[in-house]
């Protein structure tokens, strides 16, 4: 059985359990589920198109040359920069990361990409400035970038 089917069975099981506990809340949960699906799926499709574009136009060798094992420190830095700039919803980060890995990117750069894509967003900067302050925002984003680098280096060492 596919892993996805197992997750689906668990999810529906939880949904039924939740329904017996509290109908109203479960209806709300289903509403949220639809909303999330509706928000995430179009973005994912765009990311799949992006993956298709890379598949069609960028060779495995090119990806390996930028993000592969032998690129070492630079590969991680490139990946972190891509992650910081890219407008990625978190659910799109993993398919894209996995895709890059299948096409020659090493685990370290992928880890750097995943960390920064989730935690640093050029698009969310204005909101962070506004809600949490300038000093906080600048310090947080710089620290995140630097620590993500060392953790990615560590993951590269362990996983390969």
């Amino acid at each position: 059985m596919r892993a996805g089917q197992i997750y689906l069975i668990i999810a529906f099981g939880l949904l039924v359990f939740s329904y017996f506990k509290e109908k109203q809340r479960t209806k709300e949960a289903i509403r949220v589920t639809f909303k999330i699906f509706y928000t995430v799926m179009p973005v994912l499709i765009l990311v799949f198109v992006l993956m298709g574009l890379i598949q069609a136009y960028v060779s495995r060798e090119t990806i390996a040359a930028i993000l592969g094992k032998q690129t070492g420190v630079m590969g991680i830095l490139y990946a972190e920069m891509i992650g910081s700039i890219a407008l990625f919803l978190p659910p799109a980060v993993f398919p894209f990361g996995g895709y890059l890995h299948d096409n020659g990117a090493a685990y370290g750069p992928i880890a750097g990409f995943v960390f920064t894509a989730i935690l640093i967003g050029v698009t969310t900067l204005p909101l962070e400035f506004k809600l949490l302050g300038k000093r906080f925002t600048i310090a947080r984003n710089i620290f995140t970038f630097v620590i993500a680098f060392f953790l990615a280096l560590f993951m590269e060492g362990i996983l390969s």
Partner: protein
Amino acid sequence: MKTWLKNDAFRFLFLSILIALCVYALNPGKGTIVTRTVYSTFFDVLDIIIAVSIFIGLFQVWVKPATIVKWLGKGSGLKGFILVCTFPILMGGSLFTVFPLLKTLREKGARQGAIASFITAWGGKAPLLPLETKFLGWPFALLRLSLVVLFAFIMGFLMDWVCEKSAGANVNKG
């Protein structure tokens, strides 16, 4: 039509189709590669995306953000700090949804370090574990998740250190 254009879902789909059509027009062979990639990946992840959406939906109604804030309190003390570095891993959402929540947390008196730890731990993204393990494997996912806790701890200390320094500077100025 106007409301359609303002709809994000529609925009993303429209853009996707537009790009695919452009590639087809330029080079039908490459266009086929693009559509084949989209098609196979889509059906590969559809069940996981549905399952993840249900997980997040259930989590959001059973553990309301306001409850989380109340529960975490100021994120001070060792127990609060450990909670702030671990619990948000279970939450869904994007940075757009997490920042307003953190503003509330700060208004309740949470320290800068606790807020930074919260964001970092939130980056753990346990609800997306089915996706992460599918595309990057269990060793990657589990190692990353455990490092996220360490990451959150370090962020907390660093941000507290930076912000205490700035508070000191303000006192000197005053």
